[in-house]
C-alpha cells in the first residue's frame, strides 16, 4: 500500500514540473502544423536528419579514440607528466563547443591568426590559399569532439582505475602482444563505461545549437529553431523536437542499461591501485606527445586564441561591464544551486523515510529534463506558460501570468531547475544510499526527531557530495546558452550570452573577453572538483 502522504504529493509535483516540457512536445505531435512542416518534409527535413547523423557519427568516433587512448595511457603507464595529464585532460570541459568554434574560425579564416603567425615567422606573403579552411561540417565535428571527449575520458579512466589488476601484466602472462591485450582484455573490460560516456557525448552532440548555427550547418536543432523563428510555427518546432527526442530517449536507455552493467565491474574489498608500467624512450615520448597534443588542441589552443584577441583588441575590456556579468552569473548560480540542492535533498529524504516504490518511479520519470536539448526546453517552456496564462485570463478575472515566467529571473531559475534536476537529484541519491538506514533507527532510539536526524546526521554525511553537486551545477549554468538566451530578462547578460551576442554580430574579438571569463571560472571549478570527478564511479 502506498501512503498518499506529503512526500508522495511533493514528489508528484516535482516530477510533473520537470516532465512538463516533454509532455508539451509529445502532445503537440498530434496538433496541426502550418504548411511549413509539409514543405520541410518534402525538402530539407531529410538533410537535417542526415547532417545530425553525420556529425554524431564522426563525433562518436573521434571522442572514442581521444577519450579511450588518453585514459589508457594515463591509467596503465608512467611517462613524463602522466600525473599532470590525468587531471589536465579534463580541462576541455571548461570550453563550450561554441567557443571552440569561434577559435577555429578566428584561427583559420583569411587574414586570421594562422596568417598572422606565418607572416611573423616567414615574412609577408599571401598565405591565405594554403591555410586550410576548417569550417562547416568539419569545423563542427572538430569543435564538438574536442569539447566533449572528456566524458569518455573520465568514465573510461575511472573504470580502468577501479580494476584490481594491471591488465597489461595479465596480457603478458597470457602471452598476448600489447595490441592484443588492448583489444581483447582492456577494451572489453571498460565497455560499459565507454558506452555510458559515448551516450552522454551523443546526447550533448544532438542537442548542440551554438556550434552548428555558427558554422551554418543545418541540423535538427537548427530545424527546430528555424521553424519556430522564421515560420512562426511552434507545432512544427515541437514535432521536429519529437523526432530528436526519440533518438535521445534511445540513447538514454542505452546509457542507463550500460550503467547497470558497470556496477558488476566495481572493485571488491581487496582493491588496490594499479601498478603502472614505466615507459621509456620512444614509447614514453609517444605517450607524452599524444597527451600534450590533445591538451594543446582541446584547451590551450582556444584559451590562447581568446587571450590573443583580448590583448590585441583591448578596447573591449572597458566596454564590457565585467563586474555586472560576474554578479549576474553568481546570482543565477546561487539561486539555482539553492533551489536544486534543497529540493533534491527533500525528495531524497522523502523517498528514504516513506520507502515507497511509486515514489521511485515518479522520480525516475522526472529525470528526463537533462536529456532534453536546452533549445527545445526553452521553446516548450514558453509554449507551456503562455498557454497556461491564456487559459487563466480567458476563464477568470485574473491578470496574465506570463511576466512571472517569461523574461524573469524566476522563470530562468525554473527552467534551469527542469534541466538540471536530474543531475542534482541523482548526485545526492548516490551518496544518500550509502548511509545505512540502521543509522536512522539508532538515531530515533536515541531520541532524535526526524528533522534532527536529517540535519544532524544526514546533511553532514552528504556535505562533500553536496559541494560537488553545486560545483557541477555551477559549471553547467556558466556554460548554458540557449535557455538563458531565450528566457533572460532586460539588461541581463551572462558570459555565455554576451559572447554569443557579440559573435553573432561579427564581433568575435569582443566575444573573447566574456569567453575567457567563462573559461576561467569553469577551469577553477574543474580544478577544485577534479579529485572527485576522477574518482567517481559514474
Amino acid at each position: 500500500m502506498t501512503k498518499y502522504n506529503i512526500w508522495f504529493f511533493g514528489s508528484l509535483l516535482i516530477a510533473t514540473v520537470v516532465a512538463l516540457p516533454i509532455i508539451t512536445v509529445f502532445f503537440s505531435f498530434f496538433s496541426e502544423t502550418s504548411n511549413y512542416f509539409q514543405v520541410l518534409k518534402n525538402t530539407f527535413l531529410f538533410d537535417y536528419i542526415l547532417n545530425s547523423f553525420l556529425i554524431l557519427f564522426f563525433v562518436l568516433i573521434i571522442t572514442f579514440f581521444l577519450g579511450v587512448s588518453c585514459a589508457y595511457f594515463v591509467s596503465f603507464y608512467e611517462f613524463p607528466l602522466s600525473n599532470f595529464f590525468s587531471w589536465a585532460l579534463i580541462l576541455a570541459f571548461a570550453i563550450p563547443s561554441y567557443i571552440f568554434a569561434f577559435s577555429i574560425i578566428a584561427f583559420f579564416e583569411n587574414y586570421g591568426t594562422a596568417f598572422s603567425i606565418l607572416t611573423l615567422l616567414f615574412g609577408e606573403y599571401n598565405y591565405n590559399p594554403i591555410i586550410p579552411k576548417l569550417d562547416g561540417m568539419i569545423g563542427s565535428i572538430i569543435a564538438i569532439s574536442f569539447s566533449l571527449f572528456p566524458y569518455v575520458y573520465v568514465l573510461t579512466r575511472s573504470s580502468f582505475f577501479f580494476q584490481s589488476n594491471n591488465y597489461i601484466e595479465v596480457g603478458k602472462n597470457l602471452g598476448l602482444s600489447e595490441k592484443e591485450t588492448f583489444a581483447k582484455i582492456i577494451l572489453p573490460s571498460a565497455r560499459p563505461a565507454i558506452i555510458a560516456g559515448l551516450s552522454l557525448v551523443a546526447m550533448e552532440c544532438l542537442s548542440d545549437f551554438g556550434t552548428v548555427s555558427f558554422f551554418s550547418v543545418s541540423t535538427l536543432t537548427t530545424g527546430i529553431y528555424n521553424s519556430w523563428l522564421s515560420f512562426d510555427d511552434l507545432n512544427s518546432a515541437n514535432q521536429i523536437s519529437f523526432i530528436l527526442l526519440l533518438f535521445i530517449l534511445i540513447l538514454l536507455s542505452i546509457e542507463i542499461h550500460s550503467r547497470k552493467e558497470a556496477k558488476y565491474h566495481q572493485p571488491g574489498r581487496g582493491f588496490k591501485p594499479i601498478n603502472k608500467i614505466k615507459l621509456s624512450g620512444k614509447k614514453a615520448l609517444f605517450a607524452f606527445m599524444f597527451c600534450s597534443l590533445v591538451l594543446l588542441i582541446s584547451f590551450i589552443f582556444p584559451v590562447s586564441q581568446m587571450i590573443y584577441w583580448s590583448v590585441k583588441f583591448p578596447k573591449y575590456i572597458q566596454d564590457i561591464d565585467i563586474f555586472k556579468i560576474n554578479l549576474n552569473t553568481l546570482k543565477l548560480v546561487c539561486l539555482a544551486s539553492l533551489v536544486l540542492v534543497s529540493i533534491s535533498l527533500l525528495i531524497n529524504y522523502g523517498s528514504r523515510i516513506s520507502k515507497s516504490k511509486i515514489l521511485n518511479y515518479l522520480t525516475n520519470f522526472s529525470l528526463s529534463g537533462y536529456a532534453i536539448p536546452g533549445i527545445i526546453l526553452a521553446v516548450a517552456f514558453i509554449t507551456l506558460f503562455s498557454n497556461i496564462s491564456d487559459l487563466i485570463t480567458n476563464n477568470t478575472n485574473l491578470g496574465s501570468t506570463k511576466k512571472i515566467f517569461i523574461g524573469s529571473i524566476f522563470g530562468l531559475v525554473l527552467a534551469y531547475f527542469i534541466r538540471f534536476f536530474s543531475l542534482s537529484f541523482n548526485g545526492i541519491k548516490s551518496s544518500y544510499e550509502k548511509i545505512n538506514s540502521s543509522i536512522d533507527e539508532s538515531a530515533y532510539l536515541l531520541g532524535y526527531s526526524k528533522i534532527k536526524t536529517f540535519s544532524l546526521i544526514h546533511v553532514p554525511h552528504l556535505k562533500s557530495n553536496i559541494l560537488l553537486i553545486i560545483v557541477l551545477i555551477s559549471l553547467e549554468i556558466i556554460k548554458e546558452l540557449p535557455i538563458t538566451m531565450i528566457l533572460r530578462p532586460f539588461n541581463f547578460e551572462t558570459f555565455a550570452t554576451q559572447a554569443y551576442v557579440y559573435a553573432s554580430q561579427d564581433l568575435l574579438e569582443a566575444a573573447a573577453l566574456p569567453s575567457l571569463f567563462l573559461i576561467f571560472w569553469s577551469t577553477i571549478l574543474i580544478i577544485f572538483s577534479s579529485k572527485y570527478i576522477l574518482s567517481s564511479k559514474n
Partner: protein
Amino acid sequence: MKKHIILSYLFLVAFAGSLFASEVNIFSARHYDSDVQLYEKFTAKTGIKVNVVSGKSGALEKRIIEEGADSKADLYITADAGRLGAFEANLQGGLTSAAIKSVVPSNFRTSKWTGIAKRARIVYFAPERVSGAELAGLTYESLADPKWKGRLVIRASNNIYNQSLVASLIKNNGKGKVADWSKGMVANMARSPKGNDRAQILAVAAGEADIAVANTYYLALMLSGKKGPEQQAAAKKVKPFFPNQDGRGTHMNISGAGLVKGAPNKANAIKLVEFLLSEEAQNHIVNNTFEYPMIKGVSPHPLVVNMGLDFRQDLKTKVVNYGKRQADALEVMTAAGWK
C-alpha cells in the same frame, strides 16, 4: 520562514525592472556598444531609463509575439528593413511626428517604423584582376552574366541582407526573371556561400574570388584598423563599386526602429526615436558604425566619405517592399540551389 524570504526575493528580482517610473524597453537585434553609449546620453538628457534585451532578431520577435499583450517591449531595433517589414503585424502606428517625418525621406519609413541610419549593399572588386572596362555599367542584374563564372562570392540565402536585395530585384524585375537570375548567380559563385559580409571582402583580398557583394560599412570598418592591422592591409587590396548607376541607383537598406503593438511606454519610445534622429545622435552613429546618416546635414565617417558619396541611391524602390517580397526572395534563391 526561510522559504518565504527566498520566494519574496525571487519575486523582487523578477519585478525589479518595473519599479522605475520613466523608462523605455528596447528589443535590439543591433547591439553595438556604441548604441549603449547613445542610450546613456538619452537617459542623461531626459531622465528616461533605457532597458535593453539584445539577441538575434528572430528570437526577439518570437518573444514579443509569445508574450503578446504582456510584452514589455516598446521598440524593436534591427539592422534591416526586411525584418521590420515582415514584423509589421506586431507593430503599431505612431511614428508620425513632425520631428520624424521632416527628416526621414518617405521611402525609408512607414507610420510603424522608421530608418535610423542607411547602408548600401555594393560590389567589391580586386583591381589587379578586374578591369575598369569589365565593371563599366555593372548592375545587380548583370552579376549573373557568365563572364563572372567562378569569380563571385556572396553569403548564404538565409541572410537577411541578401533577402532584401533579392526582394528589391523582384519588385523591379518580377519573380520569374529573378528566378533565372538566381540560377546565374549560383553558377558564378567561386565557392559555396559561407561566412559573413566581411568574410566575402576578405575572400576577394585573399584571391579566392574577384568580386564580392557586401554592405558598405564593412570596408570602412576594416580600413579603420578596428579589426586589426592584417584586415586593414587586406581591405586596401579591394575597391568598392556602386552598381546600377545608370538606372534606378544602388540598393539601399536601413537600420531602423519599430513601435511595438501595446508598447507600455509609447510616448517615451517616440521620444527615443526622435532623439536617435537628432544631429547629435546621428553623428555618434555614423562615426561608430560607418553607416550613412539618415538625416541631412550630418557627414559620414571620413573613411566612408573616401569610398565616394556622389553615387545615385535607389530612392525609387520603397524599403517596405523588402519585407513584402521576403518569402518570394527566399523561395527563388532556395529553388536555384543558393545554399
